[in-house]
Structures are given as C-alpha cells and as structure tokens.
C-alpha cells in the first residue's frame, strides 16, 4: 500500500500549494484497502475457507476478515465518490509535502546506508545531514551532536545492555 507515492505525479506543477484533494486520497486509500481485502479473500479461498475433517480450514477466519474489510472500505469509497459533502479541500500543502518528502527520502537512504556502514556511522551521517540540510546548521554545530549521540547509543547498547546492533568497517577497525 503506497498511496503516498501516488501524490507526486498527481501534483500539478503550475498550481501553487495544491496537490490532491482529500477526497481523491480517500478514494485511493479506500481502493487500496479494497484491493488488499480482495487479496486476503483470494488467498483464504486458496487455503480453504470451509471445514476439513479436523475443523475449520486455515482460511476460515481470514476470509471473513477480508470480507468485512472490503465492505467497510467499499462504503468509504462510495461515500466519497457520490457523497455531496465529500471533502474537496487540499490533502496536503505543497510546501508541507516537500518537507515530508525531505524527511522521508534521506531516511530511506539512511536505512540503506545502515546496511553497509553499520547503524552507528550511518546514524552519525544522518543526524549531521538532517541538521545541516533541514535545520541549516553549520557543520561545527551539527558534528558534535552527530558524533555524541551515536557514542551514547553505542555505550547503551553494546556495553551497558549487551545488545549487538549492526556494525560496519569502522567498528571493526576498533575491534568490535
């Protein structure tokens, strides 16, 4: 379910501040939920929704879950499609959406970097980047925060509570 990504292409570049209406988002989300409900029901039918010799089959319960989810979302969909008092206001302001994307994209990159550099180095880079890019801090202000926080976390997890987190080449160089 990724309705969030549908927002970008639908945004009209010329029109300031408007992205999509709340109504469109309601329709998209309700539709996505209906599709998901359909998947749930189909898969339940696959594993069986009836009775085996030893009791209810695996799809017995989830099928009805899917059914209720489908019906409930269908009502939401219908109300927004034909309802006269559907909410046609803006779902999210363009500037606000830009801020949200500005947080989301680096965070996804951070999760990727974490895989290669370990959680501590990735966190340092991420905090530093975030502060400088979104907070407009100079590197002299951002760097101390970005270094101290991962150090505290390192102490807390690796030393105090003995919970190993993913580590990368830097930690390996220090013998961890």
């Amino acid at each position, binding site marked *: 379910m990724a309705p969030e990504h549908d927002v970008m292409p639908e945004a009209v570049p010329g029109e300031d501040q408007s992205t999509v209406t709340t109504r469109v988002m309601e329709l998209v989300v309700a539709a996505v939920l209906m599709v998901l409900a359909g998947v749930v029901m189909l898969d339940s039918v696959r594993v069986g929704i009836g009775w085996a010799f030893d009791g209810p089959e695996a799809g017995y319960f*989830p099928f009805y879950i899917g059914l209720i989810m489908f019906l409930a979302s269908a009502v*939401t969909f219908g109300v927004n499609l034909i309802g006269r008092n559907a909410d046609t206001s803006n779902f999210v302001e363009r500037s606000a959406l830009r801020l949200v994307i500005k947080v989301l994209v680096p965070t996804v990159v951070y999760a990727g970097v974490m895989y290669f550099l370990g959680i501590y180095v990735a966190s340092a880079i991420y905090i530093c980047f975030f*502060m400088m890019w979104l907070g407009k801090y100079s590197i002299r202000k951002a760097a101390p925060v970005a270094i101290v926080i991962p150090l505290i976390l390192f102490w807390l997890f690796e030393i105090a509570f003995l919970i190993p987190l993913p580590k990368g080449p830097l930690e390996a160089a220090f013998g961890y």
Partner: protein
Amino acid sequence: MDALLSLIHGFGVLADPMNIVYMCVGVVLGVLIGVLPGLGGANGIAILLPLTFSMSPTAAIIMLSSIYWGALFGGAITSVLFNIPGEPWSVATTFDGHPMAQQGKADQALTAAFTSSFIGALLAVAVITFLAPVVAGFALRFGPAEFFAVQLLTFCSFVGMGRESPFKVLAAMMLGFALAAVGMDSVTGQLRMTFGTVELMRGFDFLIAVIGLFGIGEILLTMEEGLSFRGKSTKITLRSVMNTWVRLPRFWITYLRSAAVGCWLGITPGGATPASFMSYGLAQRFSKNRAGFGKGEIEGVVAPETAAHAAGTSALLPMLTLGIPGSPTAAVMLGGLLIWGLQPGPMLFIEQKDFVWGLIASMYLSNVVGFLIVLTTVPLWASILRIPFSIIAPIIIVLCCIGAYTVHNAFLDVVIMLFFGVVGYVFKKLHYPLAPLVLALVLGDMAESSFRQSMLLSQGNISIFWSNWLVGSICALAMVMLFWPLIAFFIDKARNGKLGTHGETGRV
C-alpha cells in the same frame, strides 16, 4: 481483604532497591517520551522493550509501566505550554489548558493537570487492586467462546466509542487482523498470504508496526507544521501549587465522574482518548460556568486529565486478567510479557503473584514519584521542547530504526517500519484510527484461535456465542457497541421528533 494482603506482599517486592531505581528511571524516561513529539507511550515502550530482555520480568514491567505513567504526565506539559498535545489523550487538555497559559496561569493549569492525573490514576489503581483478582477468578471459568466474546466486545467498543467513521474503524481493524494472519497458521501449519516469500513467513510483528505508525507517522505529521515550537514558559512554585490545590476540592464530583468514565473506557477498550473527550463534554454539560469552557476554565483541565489517566491505568486490568490489552501501550506491554515468558491471563494471578502484585504496588508508588517529579521539573521539560525540531527529529528517527531492528535483528524490519510510518501518516490525515489496527494485529492470532476453538466445540454452529447467559450477554453488549453509531443516530432523530418513537432501533 485478600486483595489488601496481596498488595502488602506486592510492596514487599518493591523493597528491592533496584526496582525503585528502575521505577524512577522509567518515570523520567516516560515524561521525556511524553514531551517529545513522535515518541509516545506505545512506541517509546516498544523501542525500549529490547533493553528489558536481560532484566527480571518484575523489574522490567515496573520500568515499562513507569514509562507509561511518565508519558501520561508528560503529555499535559506540552498541551498546556505549547498547545501541542504530546499524546492524543491530551488533546482535550489543550482546550482549556492552553488558554490558561496564555492568561499567565500556566502554573495553575499544570498543577491542576498533574493533580488530576494523579488522582485519576490512584482511583484507577484502587479499582485494579480490588477488581482484578475478582475478574481473574471469574475468567478462570472462561472457555474459548467466552474469550472470543470478550475480544469481540473489545473490538466492537472501538466502533461504538470511536470518534472516527465506523467504517474506517472497521477497515483499519480488519487490516490489523489481516496483517496478523500473514505467515504460518498455528493450527494447520499452512502458509497464508506469504506469496511464496520467505520474509513474510515470520508475519508482521506489531512492535514494528507500532514504532512506524506512531513514531515515524507522527514525525512526518509534525514536520508538516514546520519546524519551530513556540510556547509559554513557566515555573511552578510551592505557593501556586498550594493556591491551586485549595481550589481543586470543589471539583470532587468532576473527579469522581471523570474517573468513572476513564475506568469504564479503559477496561472496555475505548481507551484514554475518547475517555478524555467524553469526560470533558460531561464536565461542560454539568458545570455551573459552562460558558467559561474553552476560555481557560480550570475544570476543563481537571476533567480530561483525570479521565485520561484513569483510562490509561485501568487499561492494564484486562491486559493482566484476560490477556486483552485496553490500549496500544498496554498491547506493547502484553507483547513484553510474552517475550519475558509470561502468559497473560487469569493464571497469572495464581502462578506469578510476585509479578502481578509487585506491578500493582508499583503503580501506587510510581504515580506518587511521577507526580513529584513532574511538579518539580516542569522548566526542564519545557526547555527540552525548545530544542529545535531539526535536532530532535533525526534522533527520534534513529531511535525508531534501532528499536525496529532490535525486535528481530532484521534489516527488513527497519524498511517495514518506515513503510508503516508512511501508512500511519496517511491514515492519521484521513482519520483512520490506529489503535484498533494495532490491537487487532496483537490479538489477531489469539482471537482467531479462540474463535476456531469455539467453532470446533460447536461443530461450526455460531449459536455457541449465545449458548449461556454469560457469553450471551457479552455478545449482546458487543453488538450494541458495534451498532451504537446507528442506534445513536436513531435516538438523535427520535429526539428531534423527525422520526417519532416507532421501532427503528429494534432492528439492531
């Protein structure tokens, strides 16, 4: 009297100084979590849960529940001073709390809020002390049909008590159930909705969902509003505390009413948020200065805070006695119980006396500790809120990622958590409730197995849910809750005379 003896035994468990240390640490962490945007009771505890794996279950639950109380207290600080509800249940506190702060009476508003929270919690703990053993004893006789009926009541309450569209409540709830069903079916061993992937075999862990939905989702929402918080600052002096306390006994009936509302909605899971709104509404209806509400009436702070704290506390009662949490935070604690190797439910009161009564005794003490801590340290928390969001936000996101990773030591969980964050953001904006989703995700397996066991007993006959007075009345109550929006609609119409009094409501 048994309860009192057990309680004294519980205080004996607390005599271990380490438990007191964990309690204080928990309360301070909790207030911090409650104050910071993006960290709430549920996801804060979810993130900290892995740290408790090496502790004894009693110490761990004491720390985690203290975090919860701290978070409940902390929510009031942001609502009053910054007009930002740190937690959803503090929204109603902003109605009168923030106007009071703008009039320069922030100290009074905060004192009233903390005192009310404290009294609400204390009344609720008293209810737990005396009611929990009774409920647990009662629940020992429960069969699968009764358990399913109680779970049904839990979920139907969300529909009846929720402020959102009932269809959205249902959709969100069923999404939770559907996600819970992903993975291996515990009865037949068949794979459901994995679509041939290995990753989905583990299913979706609700802790990951909680961290994403409440943590990242909240950060994204806060981000929208821009990056700066502007708020009032205040210091609470002993004098202002005394002055406020003198005024509070007048509202004793508000306290009792709000605590009753809170306990009721906490036990039958409406949760703290509707409790605070309902209690605010009732206080307004019965108050002599009805016109003052919304403009800085102290009673408007007392009512929602008492109810929210009472509801938050009493949400632990069904969690302990039936294994059915009354709120997302209680759900996370239930998850903790399972991880520590304890089986929540009525047997807990027989097999784990130290654990249960240690926890209940700690509720009394940690609320006192929390009350004193927040009263004395308000300026500190207010200054933390002044740290720019562009510093706080990345740190919270880092904590969320670490929290998600540590649940199963899996990278994929971090990605899933971020995905849930986006879902949480969109759902919040469209007013899909998150609490039923989380609770369904937690209880999905349990609800399904009790449903299937009941069906096995009755050979597929649904009438087992009406087979005796106990299960029948719980189911009937659940149906009333489920159709409450419809019933309320017709009652409204009947009252307005458009419909008359003939039997449309009889249909449900």
